[in-house]
């Protein structure tokens, strides 16, 4: 194993070069560019910057940063640390299944060690618990000669720390006191700090809390407009983004999502211009052209029922007028092929789940008994469509099954094995595991829409048999 310690370099400039060589993609060569590239986060950056102070000054033990997704938490923190080339470790807690992976990776990054093929992807130290971690951290910092600088540890998606060992979170919050080093821990999360207080009370190590507020509409516009495609004016692009937001802003305020949708649908928007039917100034015409398209996108691409690639292909095909718009699946949710009896079994299970047992006689018996209408009682009941499926015994399922299937079906092993295969397909769910063979209970876990499309294939009217709709 080749251990690579960087030379002790107190000189900031040399280390800055190292960082640049490592991460050209994230740190632009021109540092001025880096900070000016982050838009609309001046206040937060200034606050972080004043908290961090000079490298030699002590920093508060922990900083908790929260805000919605895509508000620039990770971007701001990593840019600040990288551009100033401060010694730091950046770990995403989702990547760490065990605390050992987390601690190892922090130590590696503090020691500037990278697992690569030559050292067999091994990490520098083997660190099982917090006690060893604190000892090794002190040692590593001494070996690198950065005792007089603040070392930053950034834990992204910090909400995952709550599910790890109980002592991990409070220990990280108080790391500078426990280790005696000048360490500052940044926790980034989408969840508010109150939800981190639990158990024996980590509440005494209050971190400094910073909120990254969501971008306002105009800020979103400013950020998205900054990646205007070539050949079009910035005003044109931002008016397009404005139109896009009028459709999507009510539903989604996530920058990444809106930006993605903007890029995806832009070719469609400029289609009339490329064809020569309209100019950049005909905003009304362009709007007429794009509106139905965007509304469709909300129901497909936004929900990821259609992949971005399919959507692009669909757009291209439509543009080239091949007329194959049927590529687009209207909804992939309701299509599944089942055997004939399985379909009936599923319908029977659905009816058993959503109908009260006392009305079975009325629906399924040949000579339906007298139905007394007790309107008083009925008003109070909440619809079963709202409350969800109820469990039913196998006997009831079979009884309903025989009554809705017109022909005579022998209760063969096939029928029963189809029930259990419906369970494995997760169309039914078995409830309770006490006596599996004797009287198993099931629940039907498919939606009304699904069962209607199944019933249509066997020309069976489910609605007529559903209590909620008939009463």
């Amino acid at each position, binding site marked *: 194993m080749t251990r690579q310690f960087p030379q002790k370099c107190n000189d900031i400039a040399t280390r800055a070069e190292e960082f640049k060589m490592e991460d050209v993609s994230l740190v632009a060569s021109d540092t001025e560019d880096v900070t000016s590239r982050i838009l609309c986060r001046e206040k937060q950056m200034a606050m972080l910057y004043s908290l961090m102070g000079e490298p030699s000054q002590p920093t508060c033990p922990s900083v908790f940063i929260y805000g919605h997704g895509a508000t620039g938490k990770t971007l701001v923190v990593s840019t600040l640390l990288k551009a100033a080339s401060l010694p730091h470790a950046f770990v995403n807690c989702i990547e760490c299944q065990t605390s050992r992976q987390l601690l190892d990776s922090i130590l590696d990054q503090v020691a500037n060690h990278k697992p690569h093929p030559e050292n067999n992807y091994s990490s520098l130290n083997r660190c099982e618990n917090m006690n060893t971690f604190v000892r090794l951290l002190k040692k590593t910092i001494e070996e690198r000669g950065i005792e007089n600088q603040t070392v930053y540890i950034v834990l992204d998606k910090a909400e995952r720390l709550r599910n790890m060992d109980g002592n991990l979170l409070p220990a990280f919050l108080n790391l500078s006191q426990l280790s005696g080093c000048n360490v500052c821990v940044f926790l980034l999360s989408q969840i508010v700090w109150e939800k981190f207080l639990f158990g024996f009370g980590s509440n005494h190590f209050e971190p400094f809390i910073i909120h990254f507020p969501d971008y306002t509409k105009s800020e979103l516009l400013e950020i998205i407009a900054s990646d205007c495609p070539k050949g079009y004016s910035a005003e044109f692009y931002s008016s397009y983004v404005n139109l896009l937001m009028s459709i999507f802003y009510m539903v989604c305020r996530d920058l990444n999502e809106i930006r993605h949708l903007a890029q995806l649908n832009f070719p469609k928007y400029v289609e009339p211009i490329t064809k020569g039917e309209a100019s950049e100034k005909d905003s009304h015409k362009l709007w007429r052209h794009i509106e139905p398209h965007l509304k469709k996108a909300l*129901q497909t691409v936004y929900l990821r029922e259609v992949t971005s690639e399919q959507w692009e292909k669909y757009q291209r095909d439509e543009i080239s007028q091949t007329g194959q718009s049927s590529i687009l699946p209207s909804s992939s949710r309701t299509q599944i092929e089942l055997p004939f009896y399985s379909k009936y079994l599923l319908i029977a299970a659905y009816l058993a789940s959503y109908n009260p047992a006392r009305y079975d006689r009325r629906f399924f018996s040949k000579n339906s008994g007298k139905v007394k209408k007790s309107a008083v009682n009925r008003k109070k009941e909440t619809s079963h469509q709202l409350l969800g499926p109820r469990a039913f015994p196998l006997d009831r399922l079979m009884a309903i099954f025989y009554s809705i299937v017109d022909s005579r079906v022998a209760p063969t092993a096939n029928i029963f094995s189809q029930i259990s295969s419906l369970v494995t397909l997760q169309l039914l769910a078995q409830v309770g595991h006490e006596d599996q063979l004797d009287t198993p209970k099931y629940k039907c876990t498919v939606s009304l829409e699904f069962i209607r499309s199944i019933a249509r294939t066997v020309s069976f009217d489910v609605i007529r048999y559903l209590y909620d709709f008939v009463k």
Partner: protein
Amino acid sequence: MSHLQEAFRKTFPAIMPKRNCRREPLGGSTIDRVQSILRRRVCRIEVPPKDIIEENLKEQRQHLVDLINRCAVRGESNSAIVTGPHGSGKTMLVSSVLREIESNPKVSKNLLIIRLNGLLQTDDKIAIQEITRQLQLDNVVGDKVFGSFAENLAFLLEALKRGSDTAQSVLFILEEFDLFAHHKNQTLLYNLFDICQSAQTPIAVIGVTRRLDVVELLEKRVKSRFSHRHIHVFNSLAFPAYKEVCKRVLTLPAEVGDAKFVKRWNQDIEALCSNATVHDVLKKTYQLDKSICRLQSLLLLPICKVTEDHPAIEAVDLVESSKHLGADSKAAMLHGISVLQLALVIAMKHLTDLYEGDPFNFEMLYNEYLKFVQRKAHVVQSFEKPVVLKAFEHLVSLEIVKPVDGHGSRTQKEYRAMSLLVTSAQLMDVLNTYPGCPSELKHWASNPLPS
């Protein structure tokens, strides 16, 4: 100067005041040194002024000093537990006592100090290794300890037992003592207290904990060996003393160098502390939380903001910092959700009211939402079920709504029982500050739809 700072200043000259170049830790400009000194005080590195501790914790401090002195000088074995709420100065008290003891050559020569922390030594095996390491016994090579748990324990006990009352004393400080009580069989505690009780090496065990009922956590045999000596530390500072602490934390010592600057700074601080606005801010903070920790976090931001262009702390800084500390984070998160999600939260509030706190599921929620949209279709765009479901799931991931039966449940997501974790007061607060909130939503929030 680092690249970033330079770049930052170029980009945002208004918010990024000029700061001096990076220099050696104790050289540098006056401001840098002032920052270093003050930051040390508020970042929990330095013990606050010693006389304040002595004033308030005189008895407790004397008690502790006596205890350790008796152990070190006369070879008496003792045990005690320091309890008090968070931020009341337990650790500070202990470290100030230790500093005094270390400065006394007669005592320090005769005393080995072992510090353990319940957060780091999570089981007895690690704790024993740590003790062996800190004692520098002969099975330690470098900073690694060899041998199994049983060997280490036997070795340690042997080493401690062999000594008589003339041997060097050992002082154990167990921070987060309550966590040690959760170890299996409480082996470590039992052995430590047992040595305390028998005529072996003189040891003193000082537990530091936040839990007042910590003795109830101990097993019977461990409890009977503990001396039941409690030292209580409370946040007993009266408000004038609290204000004095604040002043003392901000006041600079004479050795900063620039005498003129120090004089002016201290005068400014004097004026600041007698300011009526500052008085109000401090009073408010004091009424929320009496601990010094809270005061430190209040002062952190104003101190960090001190720069060359802004060389004094002003009342506005403190007000701003107090506002920052008191911000309602849940309301801040609610502020960032979309209009559709806001409508869902309002619907959830009505459902919670309707079912008197019983959980609801997505289907009920969607039904409620549909009812609203159908009545107000002309103003609020209506969305399909999958879109609403996506918005709802985002709320779940933000933990604004929570499944009642945990995540392991096998029910469909539409029918999983949920409960809302936002109060209606918070919701109303957000509705008033939400940018571009449709007035129909506001109206709906205060008046539920007739069913």
